[in-house]
């Protein structure tokens, strides 16, 4: 196996409001093998997500490896509640793009 992009391994990569002050990110896999591989790789952790989005780790309220859904999930506090003037993404729906190209080692 070669290094692959997260978008080649996950079936769903999305972001969405979780209430008015947080955005939650879901990375969902079709196969347990791919889920386990990404989990094992250590590429997706609370610290690496904070680094990717350039935020202090405290802004990540939750980080969950959700086995029943074959999913890795983390949630970020907004700086301002959704829909405040200047908010470019009221639904929080387009914040996941930086996850797509994360390199997952073999």
């Amino acid at each position, binding site marked *: 196996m070669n290094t692959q992009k997260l978008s080649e391994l996950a079936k*769903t990569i999305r972001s*969405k*409001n*979780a*209430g*008015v*002050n*947080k955005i*939650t990110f*879901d990375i*969902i896999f*079709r196969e347990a093998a791919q889920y386990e591989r990404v989990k094992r790789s250590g590429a997706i952790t609370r610290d690496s997500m904070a680094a*990717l*989005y*350039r*935020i202090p780790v405290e802004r990540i*309220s*939750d980080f*969950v490896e*959700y086995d*029943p*859904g*074959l*999913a890795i*999930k983390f*949630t*970020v*506090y907004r*700086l*301002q*509640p*959704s*829909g*405040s*003037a*200047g*908010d*470019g*993404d*009221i*639904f929080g729906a*387009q*914040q996941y*793009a*930086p996850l797509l190209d994360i390199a997952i080692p073999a």
Partner: protein
Amino acid sequence: MQHLKIICPNGHLGFAPLRPESFEIGVNAQPDFIAADSGSDDVGPVPLGSDTSTSPEAWQRGDLEKMLLASRRLGVPMVIGSAGDTGSNSRVDRYVAIIKELAQQHGLKKFKLGYFYSEVDKEALRAKMRAGHEVLGLDGFATLTESELDATDRIVAMAGVHPYIELLRQGADVIIGGRSSDAAVFAAPALFHGFAEDRAYYLGKVLECASFCAEPYGGKETVMGTISHDDVQVTAMHPEQRCTIASVSGHAMYERSNPYEEFFAGGRLDMTHCHYEQIDPRTTRITGSRFEPAAKVRVKLEGAGKVGERYVGLCGIRDPYTVANVDRVIAWAREQARLRFGDSGYGLHYNVYGRDGVMGALEPLRDQPGHELCVMVQGVAPTQEMAEELTMIGLRQMFYARLPDVKGTAGSVAFPLDEVLHASPAYRWTLNHTVEVDDPMELFKTHLVEAGI
């Protein structure tokens, strides 16, 4: 009763129309209830603050009509929650009026129409605060202060199952709810018919977004949930969709920071020990959910307050030097606004599309802008006149930005329009809180009337 079947055709009724084909299949499956939630705080604070809906009334009416006609034809109740996005009183009144009009228009036989309100009076809440009830913030909001309450235009409380059960008890055939938990419109009928909380709340959770619990992805399609004394089953009605272990368990994490639990007025649904089983190609069976009743009932409150009137302007940038120096262009325009209006008392916001307009400070690639940019300027001020002039300064002065090495000296930006556009007023979320109540019905007044002929 051994089983109760509920169909849900839409996860946010009114926001986009339901899909009639799978709805018809669902209706033909002879459900005991037809239910949908119509609200969301995803739409931001403007609809609640300004007491509007985000979508045309025609879309709301269209879905209500399909559901009402099916419900009357089958002789089963119809339940709608969080009327008109926000569940404010005016939205409940609008839905109630639509139901009455539809009943007349179609000559429907007399039926009982129940509804309840969710708005919370500011002064009543202030009195509660002064009596020592703390209004506690959720997700990073501080405990409510009176000044933040003063800044609030409208508050709705999030009902649980209680007002729905009360109206079912009174014999309502159609229920229009004020703001409520999405799951309540499904959990309440199950509880009313004697099914256990452990499964009734899960039934609500899994049905609340209609076909979002099915795959392949496709919104606004009908799904059917069946509750028994042993399990919950959920089935996709669209011939091309399936409720799979992955899609159903995956739905538990949608829009939630914690996929294992969800809070309601009166308790907490615990999905930690849920077990999922594929029992036919389109149906998943769920067991093991638990509901933990709360010792004290805390009700969630949502509130929005007006920040100011708003105008919006747009411009584009193509010169690579200006693209690289867009922050200096913006700083120049901001400074001109400051010279005109001072340091405070207004808001000037810039979204730079092509650089970080979508993600702002979360954008990892903000130092790699595209070859052209679009800048959206929003000016927010106490009056329309000031907001218009502020936005015009914030936009027009970008044209005159003084960049030392610019080759193009005839204008720093491109205007697609000469004007700035009047937008909705700016609001902000002021309440995302909870308050304790002695009686879960305290904030929700129910009414029962007749409709039809």
